[in-house]
């Protein structure tokens, strides 16, 4: 079955951050999402720490990247029959997400 990488992006605008109470609601919705699609979610997904390094033209710079409007916050691996099925799973993700959906090249 084809595998897809879901890349979750967030806005860097501070006002887009949910309040703790809103996070509680989101966590509950994610819990339901994970249960619903447990057969499709592959191990290996993770969240990313907020800062990192950028290597460009031999020069290393530190994150956070202030000029960026969005940053990659997390990723997950999904197996699905095709793009339509993968997008259908992404659509049910709770909250206001920007999700990049990419099929893995090397599936057998």
């Amino acid at each position, binding site marked *: 079955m084809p595998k897809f990488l879901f890349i979750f992006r967030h806005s860097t605008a501070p006002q887009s951050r949910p309040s*703790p109470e809103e996070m509680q609601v989101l966590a509950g919705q994610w819990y339901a999402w994970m249960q619903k699609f447990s057969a499709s979610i592959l191990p290996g997904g993770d969240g990313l720490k907020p800062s990192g390094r950028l290597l460009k033209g031999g020069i290393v710079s530190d994150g956070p990247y202030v000029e960026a409007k969005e940053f990659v916050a997390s990723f997950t691996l999904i197996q699905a029959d095709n793009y339509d099925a993968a997008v259908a799973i992404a659509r049910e993700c709770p909250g206001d997400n920007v999700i990049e959906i990419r099929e893995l090249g090397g599936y057998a």
Partner: protein
Amino acid sequence: MKEPRALVEHFFRHEFGRLVAVLTRSLGVRRLDLVEDVVQTALVQALETWSRRGIPEDPGGWLYRTARNLAIDAWRREQTHAKALPHLAEEAERETPPPEAHFADEIGDEPLRLLFVSCHEAVPAESRVAFALRTLCGFSTAEIARGLLTTEVNVQKRIERARDRLRDLDVDFEAPAAPQLRARLDGVLSVIYLLFSQGCHATHADVPIRRDLCDEARRLARMLAGHPVGDVPAVHALLALMCFHAARFDARLTLDGGIVLFEQQDRSTWKWSDVREGMAWLARSAAGDELTRYHVEAGIAWEHCRAPTFADTDWHRIAEGYDALDRIAPSPIHALNRAVAEAYLHGPQAGLDRLAAVVPENVPARYPGWHAVKGELHFRLGQHSAAERAWQEALRWTSASTDQEFLRRRLADCRRVESLDSPVSLDP
């Protein structure tokens, strides 16, 4: 994939408060902005990571480690800048030692310490409440604004004022020492009391945060009672008072959020576990010879809970309670409540006489409850046009939608009775 784990209620909000308090102890009250930012980032990271991998076995520990590491990173970044910029370096000399040294001791009573710090005499009272809701309870500005019935801008201003004052004073988190703590206990209690009364004053079914305010007030008070400084009769009395009121929350509302008067409340919907807890606190509050306003108010609330039926309510005791309360903490609201008790004892006219005896400059003309009670007493005397005038006035000063609906319902009753011109029962 493993079966995902669920989180306890209010996990994110309560962890926010706990972590802010713990990190503030390490980084100092002056770095509160940085601390809140770090904790918020840790929560976002938790939500992102747990939504991909499931919730870890010890979510609280996970968050603490994540926030601590973020704080250390932020602190190091500041140190780097400090070396580069001489004037910042100067400031850095006054800083606390590296956070690692402090993180050795585990989470203790930091939230309580922060509560005492925020009740510093220099912080305006209204700022204390907003600050506590933000910093200790983890509510957002918008949520606090809804809870306190004010604007977000207002809340933001109040919080900033508290932060500015604390920063200017360079308040030490380790202090205040025990004698100061006792002196500041009054301020802490009034913040908790205000938090609770804001929560139960107007009942908005559409604004769930209001019940949360009451729950938070009780949580902070229980925390206080669990500490030697706060394990005193006044705190026990405040807890008793809050429990007796909380017991009647569900009975005060209809299923669609309308208001139910005390007379008509279904006593079977009272939460008896709260009543029992309140009784236990009330018993403990009787130790010592101190009589605070919380003792008196707990006694009044207990009288409301105690009677098996409405008719059994001991209005003499309640009237005495309001008299005592007015002596300890004079307020026209106590006079108003005393007038209600008087009306139940000696009829509506006696209640109105009491209201009329309040000197004009003390009449809380913008307080809708004043006019609502006046309307009710006139109505019971069959003075419908006077009742209508009073209720119209009450409506003018009411902003809560459920309260408005209640008053409109009463106004409609008024007009219906007027048109029928039927004899009205005058019983109190």
